């Protein structure tokens, strides 16, 4: 074990007194003190200082009685009672937050549905006409189209052709998150797009009138729109016909669907 010089020993005196030295250094300091009167003088004065510090530690006046309680009140005062309440109930806060998020999600979904516009259907019908959303089934056979629709969207209402129009084909798609069946009728260069859905399309925005039969009417992007509910199916027609011609065609189709319901 190397012997310490006085300078080295004196630097370690405080740590030696505080028991902060490892065993090797501690033994070295002890051996040096045993042999060195000069460093022993330092040691004794250090002990005097330490004794004085100890007394100072013990003679600190007591704090005010309410200090401790003042300190414990701070978290509540600082962050507010409501925050403190939730901090103390982490699980409850978690569940409540999740519930709020779900409620918000449902609200947004509902508001999207009820707040959806007939424009969605109008634009879809334009896409079909432009062949950007082509028909999946081309057929003028009503039974064949009905069967195909049943396979695609699990239901297939019977729709009679509007007078003078012939069935061109069908497709299925999702609009506003709902499965929708689509049938296209054609007469010369005029077309009527017919959407069928289990969700009511009469609740959409964009209607500006109702016929005596209860058919909702509207105009969107230069096209006529009509919608009605019959039984468990909702119908929506879009066409570039004139308004009168369109209302007549829509009334005819609607009457057919209501009649088929009664049959």
């Amino acid at each position: 074990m190397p012997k310490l010089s006085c300078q080295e020993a004196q630097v370690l005196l405080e740590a030696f007194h505080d028991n902060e030295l490892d065993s090797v250094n501690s033994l070295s300091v002890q051996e040096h003190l045993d042999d060195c009167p000069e460093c022993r003088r330092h040691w004794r004065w250090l002990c005097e200082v330490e004794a004085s510090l100890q007394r100072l530690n013990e003679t600190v006046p007591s704090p005010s009685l309410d200090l401790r309680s003042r300190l414990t009140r701070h978290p509540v005062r600082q962050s507010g009672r409501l925050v403190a309440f939730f901090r103390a109930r982490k699980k409850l806060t978690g569940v409540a937050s999740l519930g709020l998020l779900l409620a918000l999600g449902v609200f947004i979904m509902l508001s999207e549905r009820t707040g959806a516009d007939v424009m969605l259907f109008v634009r879809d019908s334009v896409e079909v006409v432009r062949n950007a959303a082509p028909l999946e089934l081309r057929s003028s056979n009503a039974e064949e189209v009905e069967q195909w629709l049943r396979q695609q969207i699990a239901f297939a209402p019977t729709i009679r052709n509007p007078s003078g129009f012939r069935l061109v084909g069908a497709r299925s798609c999702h609009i506003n998150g709902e499965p929708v069946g689509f049938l296209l009728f054609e007469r010369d260069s005029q077309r009527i797009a017919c959407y069928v859905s289990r969700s009511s399309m009469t609740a959409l925005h964009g209607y500006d009138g109702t016929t005596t039969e209860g058919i909702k009417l509207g105009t969107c992007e230069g096209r006529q729109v009509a919608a009605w509910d019959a039984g468990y199916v909702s119908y929506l027609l879009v066409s570039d016909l004139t308004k009168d011609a369109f209302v007549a065609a829509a009334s005819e189709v609607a009457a057919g669907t209501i009649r088929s319901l009664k049959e």
Partner: protein
Amino acid sequence: MADRKNLMSGNANDAYAEAMLGCFEALYRTAFRLIGNKSQAEDLVQETYLRAWRSLTQLHSLSGVRPWMFRILRTTFVDQLRRESSRPKLVIDIEKMLAAVDKLSPPEIFNVRDRDKLDHLDELFDQEIVSAIAELPDEERLALVFQAVGNLTYREISEALECPIGTVMSRLHRAKRWLRLRLAEYAENCGFIRSTPGKEDQSGAKA
């Protein structure tokens, strides 16, 4: 040991709050010895806890609560010193004095029998120590008070002062060397010391 993950649970939070409040006595004593005034020490402790509650999420383990609280006490204290820096202050070139102290050797201490006759010696020494502590540079003073009054280990002091343990040892050595020289000087000036170099009392050494 409650870790950071568990800190989010109510029980762990309670454990941290309990550990923080467990430091209250030591923090108050330390604050008092740093400032020397009860009312201001209470304010310092209160401000320390205020900051601690706000930063509770910084805590990583229960064992770290004590040095963490003292670190906040230190920053609060230093901020306070900065705010009061405009006040007139006794300026002592402590660096120069400590350098001179390193070259000095303390006089022989009085013997035990003489000391017993001096009823008020402890009180006088304590007053002198309080004055000597107040003259220390801030970093030495903080290390000394944290160790002697706050009863922190060297490792805890290094965490609280955010410096290596070697620096803590060096600061404590300088601070306590300064105190013992000041005490010896005081004793000599007051005539408490019997100047008998070489005739030391062997029983004074630590066995």
